[in-house]
């Protein structure tokens, strides 16, 4: 399976994603410079974490004007799999591929830590190897991960089952106490209506190998690969 990993000036998890796809998942990985306009040769596209354009002004605000973003839209419209991780999620929001916006963390501080997530849907290309309601442990590292949307949008996210990951206790309790950044409804990751574009703040690429202290992230990539293989069969 061919993964395109978009590199914006200031991306800094591009190499981590590349490593996971190539050396951990043993699939094909390619860097895609942000000036590219064609993504048609890929089966999936990753918008990696980092600080595109320094996250100056607002996280993801400037990156969304990169030429590659029209290609990402087109790719997504045709049903291609797109995953935005951390800064990638922020870019997807700014670009309007996913609804809502990111505010500064409620603590006003950058947070690097391990959190627990509840996987609330397992019929998506990104989560179908998880079990329903499974709680996973995963690292976060962000300063602007406080997800916000207006009440109507939240309603529609809920009714369309677009909320995929929520911050929770190790037992799966979605309580404010386990919300690291103030996100509305403990939202950590959402999907588009069509189900092929996922944005998530936590970093699955940082917990895909035992040596890093956890492997729950592995299943996100494995789900994508598995789904694509099924689809092409």
């Amino acid at each position, binding site marked *: 399976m061919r993964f395109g990993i978009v590199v914006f*000036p*200031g991306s800094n998890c591009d*190499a981590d994603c590349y490593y996971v796809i190539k050396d951990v998942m043993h699939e094909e990985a390619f860097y895609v410079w942000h000036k590219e306009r064609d993504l048609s040769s890929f089966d999936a596209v990753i918008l990696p974490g980092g600080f595109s354009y320094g996250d100056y002004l607002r996280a993801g605000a400037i990156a969304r004007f990169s030429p590659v973003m029209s290609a990402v839209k087109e790719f997504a419209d045709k049903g291609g799999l797109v995953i935005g991780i951390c800064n990638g999620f922020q870019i997807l929001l700014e670009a309007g591929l996913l609804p809502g916006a990111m505010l500064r963390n409620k603590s006003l501080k*950058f947070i*690097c830590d391990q959190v627990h997530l509840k996987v609330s849907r397992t019929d998506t290309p990104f989560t179908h190897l998880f079990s329903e309601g499974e709680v996973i442990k995963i690292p976060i590292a962000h300063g602007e991960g406080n997800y916000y949307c207006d009440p109507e949008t939240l309603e529609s996210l809920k009714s369309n089952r677009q909320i995929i990951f929520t911050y929770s206790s190790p037992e799966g309790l979605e309580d404010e106490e386990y919300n690291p950044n103030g996100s509305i409804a403990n939202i950590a990751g959402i999907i588009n209506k069509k189900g092929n574009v996922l944005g998530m703040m936590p970093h699955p690429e940082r917990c895909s190998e035992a040596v890093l202290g956890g492997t729950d992230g592995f299943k996100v990539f494995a789900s994508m690969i598995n789904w694509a293989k099924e689809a092409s069969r």
Partner: protein
Amino acid sequence: MKNNMSYRDLGIGDDEYRMILDFMGREPNELELGMFSVMWSEHCGYKNSRPLLKLFPTKGEHVIQGPGENAGVIDIGDNDALVFKIESHNHPSAIEPYQGAATGVGGIVRDIFTMGARPVALLNSLRFGEPYDERVKELLAGVVAGIGDYGNCLGIPTVGGEIYFNDCYKENPLVNAMCIGLVKKDEIKRAVASRIGSPIMLVGAKTGRDGIHGATFASEELSEESTAKRPAVQVGDPFMEKLLIEACLELIKEDLIDGMQDLGAAGLVSSVAETASKEGCGVVIDVLKVPRREEGMTPYEVMLSESQERMLVIPKEGKEKRIAEIFDKWGLDAVVIGQVTDDGIFRVFEGEKEVAAVPVVALTEGCPVYVREGIKPDYYRKVQGLNEDELLSVNLTEAFKKLLASPNIASKKWVFSQYDYQVMTNTVVVPGDGDAAVLRIKGTKKGFAASTDCNSRMVYLNPYEGGMMTVCEAARNLACVGAKPLALTNCLNFGNPEKPEIYWQFKEAVKGMAKAAEFLGTPVVSGNVSLYNESSNGAVYPTPVVGMVGLLEDIENRRDMAFKNEGDIICLLGRLRRELGGSEYLYVCHGMESGRVPEVDLEEEKSLINLLLELTSLKVLSSCHDISEGGLAVALAESAIKGGIGFSVKLESLDAGILFSEAPTRAVVSLNKDNISKLKEVSSKWGIEVHVLGRTGGEEIIIAGEENEAVSLNLEEARQIWGERLQCLMK
């Protein structure tokens, strides 16, 4: 005469001015004088410290590059090398904590990729006043956010460091940043080997009036006067730095350049002089070619500006075009600002007009060196006189709780959770989990570990012993996580060396460090000196921070400090010691910072390290944690809290000394009972005592004596006291 007035304002002494006249053969103009003033400042010229730095051992089987370059380099096998250095940004951080600390990180990162290495880890070493004062908290919050934001944006994990609080740092905090880079041995860039006629390119940020005379400023005591003449504060642009890293590393991969030089203190003057001095060349620069951010800048301002995120690049013959393409790809402007010449003169032009001409050697090697006399300070004798037997007795459980709550001991999670310590997916022992950070090296079985250390109270009480202790602690920390200590970098933070008492501290500490580094086989490969750390309250404690780097042949053998299993045996490796001199206990429970510093036995330290390394390959230990601040009791508690497992141990007697002594060369380990005979066997081979103390398990922390007395505390309560203290203070 005009110059006569100004040279003193620039910090140049009368004798120094006479030397300048000799070099020049005439009166220097203002720009020339400015060039001397920054190059001959302590910060650039090391005029008070050079003779002492010569005491350091700098060679060893792993050393590829010792001091004298932008950073040191060590060989870790398989064509891999580690590049590292530590640097201070104390004075800028005192003025503007966020930007001061951020630009400190920016500066040390440039020193690393200038050598051709990819920066892969950041550490730091911080000192503040006690965090009960609003201004101190502001400084602390600003510095931590500045370090975090800058490193996070670059995508370089900040994996370790240390932070201490003592009121001697209240007005003059210390902010030292360390960076480690990874490079293929055959891609290391050394001295800028300049070809005559080679163009000199400047790339990165535009030049503004920031930080003019920063180097001179860093070489003076902080006073109201110095605050008034402080330079425009430099603002960091981590995004620009990230682009520079990627672009410069691409130049190296394609082998397009002879060399690179970062612009740091003293800006263009220093980096251009360094570029030329390596080969005895000269250089011409046209200030009009330097892209500027502000209008009406004079040659003086352009040459001395300390605007951040700039690099000089010396292209290989005929590669200019390709270099320009790569910079263009990254959205960076690179311009040719001058050329290497053969006359040994540093010439500055403003268009057609020559505005300065100074012999390069005068600026570099010409810098005067001062060998000063030290005097043993009065306090030294006084503090040795403490009689520990005369201390009022305290409730040991209460003392234990107080220690866990001391900001110097309590968890530093409030700090490191603001640092992205996992980006690059190499960090396998994360901050707080082990005595040192451990990172894997992808594509190999290997890993490296790093730690920064300095117990400045000990150094204050006895600079020589304290200096040795600092090096030993760093080495021991590495051995605790399973890494073989290889080499060190250091940042010597002291007061005004012109004061004989300070010079004595400086000299004694360096001697102690040199002795230990030599003995342990961990040479000094790089470093930095920060003097004049004084305020109206006097000098800071002598704080010679050591950053040490070690190697793990097999990353699977790494260890952390957390107890792993219920029912493991807990042992002390090393002697049961009772000396309380310089301990946090004396400070927290008796308000004293005094006493005789516990002696370091270098032979024993080396044996302990070797023992820990042998135990690593034998995989007999479940956890390992060295004894430092807070002594045995705190070491045990930390392992328990980290592992979420209580313990019960029994000591031959229960007293403050045995619980809280910070005597070095000791570690607390836990292991399966089946491994105990192996442990004893190997320990006896290395001549290190093993004391079986008790077992892990349960929800309580229990330290019992022979009689019925015991120190006991619920594990969850201990976790709360220790874990939440700093967070509460910083709310």
